[in-house]
C-alpha cells in the first residue's frame, strides 16, 4: 500500500495535476473521444490515482489510447486535468522500462487507422500553450 501511494504521489508530482479535487461528475468521460477504446475511462483513471492503483493503470493499454486531445482538461469544472495524469503515467511507465516502449519499426503494424496518433496529437497539444 505504501509503495502504491509513493507511486501515486510521483504521478501527481510529475503531472502537476490535483486528482483529489475530483467531484466525480463524469465530465471528462463525457467529453472523451476515445472513451470506447479505453479500458479505464478518464473518470476511473482519476479515481484510481487517488487510491494508488497506479500499477494496474500502467499495465493497461488505456494510457496509450488517450489521444491527449485535452478535452477533459479544458472542460473539467474542478481543474483536475486528467490528461496530464495520463501523460504522467506514461512517463512513469517509460521510465520503468528504461527505454522506448515501442520499437519504431513495429509501429505501422499496430497503428489504428481510426485514431489519430497519440504521440503526434500529444506533441502539438503540449507545445501549443
Amino acid at each position, binding site marked *: 500500500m505504501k509503495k502504491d501511494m509513493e507511486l501515486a504521489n510521483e504521478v501527481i508530482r510529475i503531472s502537476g495535476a490535483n486528482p483529489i*479535487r475530483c467531484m466525480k*461528475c*463524469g465530465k471528462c*468521460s*463525457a*467529453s472523451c473521444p476515445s*472513451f470506447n477504446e479505453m479500458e479505464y*475511462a478518464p*473518470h476511473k483513471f482519476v479515481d484510481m490515482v487517488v487510491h494508488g492503483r497506479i500499477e494496474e493503470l500502467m499495465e493497461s493499454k488505456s494510457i496509450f489510447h488517450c489521444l491527449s486531445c485535452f478535452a477533459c482538461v479544458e472542460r473539467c469544472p474542478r*481543474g483536475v486535468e486528467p490528461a496530464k495524469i495520463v501523460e504522467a503515467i506514461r512517463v512513469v511507465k517509460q521510465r520503468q522500462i528504461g527505454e522506448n516502449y515501442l520499437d519504431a519499426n513495429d509501429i505501422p503494424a499496430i497503428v489504428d487507422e481510426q485514431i489519430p496518433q497519440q504521440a503526434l496529437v500529444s506533441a502539438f497539444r503540449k507545445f501549443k500553450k
Partner: protein
Amino acid sequence: MLKIGVFVCWCGSNIAATVDVKQVVEAVKLQQGVVFATDYQYMCSEAGQLIMRNAIEEYKLDGVVICSCSPRMHEATFRKNAERAGLNPFMVEIANIREHCSWIHKDVEEGTIKAIALANAAIAKVKLNAPLISGESGVTKRALVIGGGIAGIQTALDIAEAGFQVDIVEKSPTIGGNMAKLDKTFPTLDCSACILTPKMVDAAANPNIELLTYSEVEKVSGFVGNFKATIRKKARYINTDLCTGCGDCMSKCPSKKGKNEFNCGLNNRPAIYIPFAQAIPNVAVIDPVQCIKITKDKCGLCQTVCSAKAIDYKQQDEIIEREYGAIVAATGYKPIKLDKFDEYGYSQSKDVITSLELERLMNAAGPTGGKLVKPSDGSHPHTITFIQCVGSRDISGRGKCYCSKICCMYTAKHAMLIRDKYPDVNVNVFYIDVRTPGKNYDEFYRRAVEEYNVNYIKGQVGKVYESDGHLVLQASDLLNNEQILVNSDMVVLATAIEADESAKKVASMLTASIDTNNFLTEAHAKLRPVESPTAGIFLSGVCQGPKDIPETVSQASACAAKVIGLLSKAKLVTNPCVAHSDELLCNGCSNCANVCPYGAIGYETKLINDHGIRENRRVAVVNPALCQGCGACTVACPSGAMDLFGFSNSQIMAEVEAICKK
C-alpha cells in the same frame, strides 16, 4: 498618584483550591498604587459587591482590579457595581485567575505565582485606564430597502407592519424581481404569481411603504441610525400619477423590436411598455434608447393615443435625498452568462435554453401562453433533457465555485410539470449529485423519479450538437461506466446563479463587506446571519448567498426583525472602546482608513496648532458611532497617532512588561 483597589475572589474552592488567595493579596499590596487589597469567597455575590462598593467609597479608589473568573463572565457585573459606587465603569479591570489559572493548574505554588503575575498585569493596565463615557446617537425612524424582489418586499412589509416607514428602491420599472418570472414553485407547486402578486399589491397599498421603482441609490453617507442616501429616480417619460395602465400606447407603438426583459428576451416588446400585466406600479415606461420620438424626435404616436395625457417626453431624472436609520440590501441574483460553455451549444441552437427561460415558456403569461414548444420551430418536443450544475461547483474559472442550491429542486419541478402536462414527453436529467435537503424536498425529488418516471442519469454532458434536426448529447453514464449518446428535442441548462451586478456597487456604497463571489458577507455565519459587519446594514435574500424562496422569505423576515429592533430604540448607546486619532501626530496618510472594515475613518482638513506652528493639515477623524473597536487602524498607523480606548498601546505594553517581569 492613582489609588487602586484589588479584590481577589475565591470562587468557593474553584480558585482557592489551586491559588493561595491570601498570598495573592499580600503580593499585590506591594505594588505601587495599591491602597487596598482583600479577598472574599464570592466577589460576584451581593455581599462581595458591597465590599467593593464600600472600599471604593472609603479609600476613594481611582481604579479597581478584580481577580476572578473570565471577564466574559462578570466584567459587566463589576463595571455596573463600580458605577453604583460612583466610579467610572471603565476603570475596572479583571484578572482571569479561574479559567486561565486555577482550573488548568494543579500545583498551588505554580498557580499562585501565575495568579500574582496576572493580577500585576491587570494592575499595570488599570493604572493607564481612562474614564470612558458611552456616547449616544439618535435613530431616524425610517428604513431603506435596496431591491424589490421577494426578499425586499417581505422585509419592507414586515418593517411597515411594525409601524415604521420604509422605502423600497428598485432599479427596474416594477417590483417583483426574479420570482415574478417563475411559473410554479417547489415543493408545493403553487403558482408563483398567485403567491407573489398579492404581496406586491400589499406593498404598494401599505401607507408606510413608498415604492421608488426605476430608481437607483447613488450615494450613502452617515452611520447606523443616521444614514443619508441619494436616490436617482430615472425618467420614465410617463407621469405615473396620470397613467392608468390601460396599455393603449403599447399596441400603437411602431417600434416593437425591444427585447422583452421579463420574458428573458424570448419575444419582443414595444418601446413604451408595461413589463407585465401584474406589474406594480402598473404604469408604462419608455425605453429611451429604443423610442424614435426620444432618439430622433419623430413619431409621438403614444402621446396622441394616451387619453390620460400621461406621456411626457421631456421628463428628467429626479434626485431624492432621504435620511434612514437602517439600510437593507436585497439586491438578489441573476443567472450567469453562458458564453464560456460552448460545449452545450446555447448560442448555436435555439432549442438549448436556460431554466429561467423554460419558466417563461411554461408560464401561462409567457410568450407561448404556457404551451411548451421548441423555440426553434414551434413544434411539440418529444424528448427534453436537463443538465444540472451548469457553471456551479466549477473552480476552473468558467463558472462559480459554489453550489447554486436551487437547481436540483427546480429541475425536479420542471421535469415533473412537463411529465404531468405532456405524458408523451420523455424527460432525462443529467446530474452530478442530487442535493435536496429541506422540508418535503427529497420526497419531492423522489416523486419525480418514482411517480413521473423522470430518467435521472448520473454523469455530465460533454457536448451538445445538432444532427438530423434534433440535438444529440454526448454524455457519460457513470453508474454504468458508459459513454452514451442521447437524442433530445430540447436541452435545458440549470444555469448557476450569481449575485446581481449591482451588489458590488451597493456593497461599496454601504461599506458592507463582500466575498470573492460578490455575495455580501454576514456579521457571523451562524449567530448573526442577517446583519452585515457594518452596523445598521442588513442583508436579505440571495445577495447574501444562494437561497430558495422559503429560505429567502425567512431571512427577509429575520432581517426585518433586526431592523425593527434597531428602529425602536430611542437612542443608540455607542461602545466607548473605539479608536481615536492624535491630530498632532497624524500625517493624513490614509493607511488607517484603508484597513478599517467599517468605513469609520474619514479625513478633515483642520487648523492644527503644532507647537506654535499653525497650519491646515489633513487629519484622520474617527466616527465613534461606526467604529467597532477592532484596533486594526492602530497597528497600521505609521506615526502612532491612532490609538484605541480601553486597549491602548501603553496599556498593552504595560501588561507585557508586567508579565515579563521576572
